[in-house]
């Protein structure tokens, strides 16, 4: 490798201020008395400043809201679930209360219905617990799929 080839390889790092002090000084010294490396350096400089003043394209309002929409849909989905579950719980609670306090319904019918409801809760609950456990031990939770 000639001296010029050696220096030429350092010119980008020199331009970006990313060289070690030692390398920077070597380039400094060489550029002082080598016109062809100096010319190469000036051309790289012009490329850099040209690229630096290239326009930064901006999205249309429609594109922007599409991109930012990823937050909105995820958040509103969460709120939606919360409302749905809350609403359902309220309705069921009211139904149960009315059913239990309704004196026109036979006690045995109430007991039978109660047993079915408890069974459903137990089964549903165990499925939920299992799901949560799976989720916790899912090693790929944070890996993008």
């Amino acid at each position: 490798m000639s001296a010029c080839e050696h220096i030429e390889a350092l010119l980008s790092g020199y331009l970006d201020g990313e060289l070690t002090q030692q390398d920077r000084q070597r380039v400094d010294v060489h550029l002082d008395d080598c016109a062809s490396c100096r010319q190469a350096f000036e051309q790289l400089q012009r490329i850099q400043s040209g690229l630096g003043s290239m326009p930064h394209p901006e999205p249309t309002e429609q594109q922007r809201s599409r991109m930012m929409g990823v937050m909105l849909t995820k958040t509103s989905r969460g709120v939606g679930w919360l409302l749905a579950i809350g609403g359902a719980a309220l309705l069921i609670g009211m139904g149960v209360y009315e059913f239990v306090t309704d004196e026109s319904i036979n006690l045995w019918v109430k007991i039978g219905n109660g047993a079915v409801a408890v069974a459903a809760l137990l089964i549903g609950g165990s499925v939920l617990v299992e799901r949560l456990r799976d989720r916790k031990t899912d090693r790929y939770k944070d890996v993008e799929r």
Partner: protein
Amino acid sequence: MTTLMETFQRQGFVFAVYMLGNADDAADAVQDGLSAAWNHRDVVRSAHDPTAWFFRVLRNKCVDRLRERSKRRTEELFDAADQRASDGESDAARRELAEALRVELSKLDPVHREMLVLRDVQGMSYAQIADVLSIPAGTVMSRLHRARMTLRDRLKGAL
């Protein structure tokens, strides 16, 4: 996190437009990247450089898209960007160089193009670029230099 997402969107769109050459595709890629960032927001917030995290994901989305359509050209954007650039530019030689740069940048190998966009258009440091591309800092310097030298050879007349 919302502020972070805004920044990702703004900077990511610039990168994606230059990489994909088309604003709609760029918006798609950024949308995918933002969605990943939002889904992993705990990871992103605690990353030592959230922007590098986002760019790493976005860059991969862009590479996937480039691979998919491997041969479609990137001229569309460069036409649109062209008009905006010439608005404020008074110096004819400068304008000519800007035009040549745009054309040659779009024709460059994406591996070289991404170096120039990250460094010279977006002003990232070598360390940040190394982080985004998952390559050693020394490789950043040599690859970037090769990208600039290629551009220089192709631009000879305009420089």
